[in-house]
């Protein structure tokens, strides 16, 4: 379908860098488009010709399995050709070499670059270096927009709405790009957001962004509609901002006892991969409240929508936003 003439298109961005710059309307438009794409994966031929002849490159400067696979499959379901580039970059070769690498790859005739990098702002830097679409697949501690979008999609799909829901994000908020992107999206869509974790990992200054900061997980359990348990990153466990694993599990782990104090229809989310027995007990991760696998399935539809929308915006506005 096309929009009636005279009406302004909602989505005109060729890049997706972060949710902070998107309007509520733009976020909802991606979610609505993703709903249409979800149906494609249920067909006998799980493929549509929308990106036929387009080339998508995965540029992952940081390890990832599921995000990379999800983007690859999303691009393939849109009939794009997908190539993989992977590199571990030393800190001395950042900047200049990232730009050069991207320009060289673009010269092969690439339409969309999916970029993951340990440095915040790397995807933004690339938008200035190349002409193709840039999709941020996670940059440093800054943003992971497609993860947040698939979380929003899953909440809306299961709960029927986002506005007015009590949502908690639990874990290492300070170092998490998933938390930052979720925060932007949830607040824009009118959820009431609580960030939970030890003071070293959940600083008070997050309150300035419009979220509530709480250090006592047990106190807020009964009021929550959605609880998103972040993965505890191994490298943090050895640092001095982190309590012992035992203490963390005792205070902030989701287990059967805590789950019993939640609303009966509470939704337990996790961006994966799960550290079973740390942030999430195995029986909760596999239980009926958990949406972990649903999130993975929805990630595909959301990424198809993002690839399609950015490519459509690029095809009409060469060099546009």
């Amino acid at each position: 379908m096309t929009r009636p003439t005279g009406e302004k298109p909602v989505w005109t961005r060729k890049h997706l860098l972060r949710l902070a710059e998107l309007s509520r309307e733009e976020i909802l438009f991606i979610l609505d488009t993703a709903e249409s794409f979800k149906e494609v994966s249920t067909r006998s031929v799980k493929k549509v010709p929308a990106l036929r002849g387009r080339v998508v490159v995965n540029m992952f400067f940081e390890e990832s399995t599921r995000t990379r696979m999800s983007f690859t499959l999303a691009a393939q379901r849109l009939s794009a050709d997908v190539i993989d580039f992977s590199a571990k970059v030393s800190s001395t070769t950042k900047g200049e070499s990232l730009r050069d690498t991207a320009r060289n790859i673009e010269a092969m005739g690439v339409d969309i670059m999916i970029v993951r990098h340990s440095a915040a702002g790397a995807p933004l830097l690339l938008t200035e270096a190349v002409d193709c679409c840039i999709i941020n697949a996670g940059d440093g501690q800054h943003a992971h927009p497609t993860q947040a979008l698939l979380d929003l999609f899953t909440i809306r799909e299961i709960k029927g709405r986002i506005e007015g829901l009590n949502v908690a994000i639990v874990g290492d908020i300070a170092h998490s790009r998933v938390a930052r992107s979720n925060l932007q999206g949830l607040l824009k869509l009118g959820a009431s957001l609580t960030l939970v974790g030890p003071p070293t990992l959940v600083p008070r200054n997050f309150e300035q962004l419009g979220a509530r900061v709480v250090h006592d997980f047990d106190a807020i359990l009964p009021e929550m509609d959605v609880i998103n348990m972040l993965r505890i990153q191994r490298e943090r466990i050895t640092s001095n901002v982190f309590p012992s694993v035992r203490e963390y599990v005792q205070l902030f782990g989701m287990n059967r006892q805590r789950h019993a104090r939640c609303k009966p229809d509470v939704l337990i989310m996790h961006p994966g991969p799960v550290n079973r027995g740390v942030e999430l007990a195995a029986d909760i991760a596999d239980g009926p409240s958990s949406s972990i696998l649903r999130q993975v399935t929805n990630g595909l539809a959301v990424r198809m929508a993002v690839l399609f929308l950015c490519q459509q915006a690029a095809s009409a506005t060469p060099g546009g936003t």
Partner: protein
Amino acid sequence: MKTTLEQMARQIAAAVPRDRPVAVVGIRRRGEVLAGRLMPLLEQAGAPPEHHGALDITLYRDDLTAIGPNAVVRKTEIDFDVTDTWLVLVDDVLYTGRSVRAALDALIDLGRPMAIRLAVLVDRGRRELPIQPDFVGLTIKTEADSNINVKLQEVDGIDEVELE
């Protein structure tokens, strides 16, 4: 418009095979509305279809690059297996034939119908592809620079066919 649709329903009912499940699928958006209206009319005409669905062809268009951000992807809602059905594809206006080409590709990705037939409210001619309708409400000869607008109560608040 009611009379025209009744007449189309009678034509379709006369052609329906008795030994196959019949499905009526409308192209979003006005074809979908017309398909919905044809359902009870087909029942009255003695050929109640087993299935009813809506098809969004946006992802199959051959002008995606040209329409850019004006493309809006809606849901395809076909919750039955199209394989071995006798499927009537419904649209409001048949013009270049490009939408129907896209719809045929989309349908074939869903399965293998026993047959696909094309029903359109208005055939305005000027085809660019070798596609012809099986059931036609109105045939209007038009110039390339003229426009046919089908307006439907459910979408536009009024039933009319307008020639510009």
